[in-house]
């Protein structure tokens, strides 16, 4: 049985430290946009931490919600792409093929989570910062869409390694940069098709909710609602 990657994010544990955002940028060669471009809404961050306030002063509480691509089962971004740059792969990912993308930006409009990003200009790095780029992840170019891949390059490496060692992939062996870097362990990643995996058990909890479930996208990210 093929894998179906999924994630659980425990909102009770999220402290809003944004380590996931930084780790993601480093892992996935995400270029910085610069101050003026970020002000225009052109910054790229495959995962963002949404912040909201609850209550009246002085009893105010800040709430955080990390939002990466929700890797929907019925993703609105996929059928609208005229060139199959956005499609569904066998492991349940909403993959984005950069070299197939012609930049209609239709997928970005279709995404209810605003989880897709466009390269408005050529990405660039001041030298020698290019030396820290991840060789396993391609550098996008101007005019193409990009989005969270669940760090699929890591899954491929792990699978290749497991295959070389002639053993099955272990639960927890693969984890995206955001999950790996989360200090409070709010994020758990794994195979939803494996009933024994940590992510399957957590996703089945009563606290589990999906973001914008009413839109009917069947996301593979489950949020564990706050109890506190």
């Amino acid at each position: 049985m093929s894998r179906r990657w999924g994630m659980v994010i425990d909102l009770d544990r999220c402290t809003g430290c944004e380590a996931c955002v930084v780790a993601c940028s480093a892992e996935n060669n995400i270029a910085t946009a610069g101050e003026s471009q970020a002000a225009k809404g052109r910054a790229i961050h495959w995962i963002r931490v949404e912040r909201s306030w609850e209550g009246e002063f002085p009893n105010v509480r800040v709430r955080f919600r990390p939002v990466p691509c929700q890797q929907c089962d019925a993703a609105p971004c996929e059928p609208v792409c005229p060139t199959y740059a956005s499609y569904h792969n066998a492991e349940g990912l909403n993959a984005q093929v950069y070299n197939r993308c012609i930049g209609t930006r239709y997928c970005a409009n279709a995404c209810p989570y605003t989880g897709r990003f466009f390269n408005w200009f050529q990405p660039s790095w001041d030298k020698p910062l290019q030396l820290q780029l991840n060789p396993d992840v391609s550098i996008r170019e101007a005019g193409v869409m990009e989005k969270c891949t669940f760090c699929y390059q890591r899954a491929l490496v792990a699978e290749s390694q497991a295959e070389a060692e002639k053993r099955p992939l272990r639960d927890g062996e693969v984890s995206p940069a955001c999950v790996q870097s989360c200090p409070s362990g709010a994020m758990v990643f794994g195979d939803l098709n494996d009933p024994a995996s940590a992510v399957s058990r957590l996703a089945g909890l009563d606290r589990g909710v999906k973001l914008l479930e009413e839109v009917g996208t069947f996301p593979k990210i489950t949020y564990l609602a706050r109890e506190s």
Partner: protein
Amino acid sequence: MNAIYGLFPDTDSARRAVKALGEVSRRLRFQPRQIVVVSQEPLDDREMGLPRQHTWMPWIAACGGIVGGTAGYALAAFTQRTYPLPTGGMPVVALWPASVVTYEFTMLGAILTTIVAFLATARLPRYGQRVYDAAVSDGMILVGVADSDVNAWRDLEETLYEQGAERVRQFSTA
């Protein structure tokens, strides 16, 4: 190819000329279908006493539509099966989206066959010399006989003038 024709200023005289030519056709040994009529605006066949025109064009267009629609569906289905990529929880060949493509290709097929059928049945384009007179574009109506016996030309000229031709011309290609 040779021809003799008269140029008529109005429909009435042209109609009379067609009728008169029909009457003298047996005597001057030519077939009624050798009568040539050329005008700058459409004339009513029945009114002119010409044989009724008939064409299969609507049916050809319908067939073209069916062919186009089939091709459209085949294209949509075939191309998605060759590299089956599931998208958005849809089946690989999804009926509703494919029907939109099929519809458009049906219409495209009908349009293209209509254009081709028009050109083929109206025998266009053809740039060679044919019975024609630039005076037609001044509003004259050309009525004449093509490929008739040269000996009958004198009689034909007389007939055409009698029916009100402004000019009678002879036309021949070597």
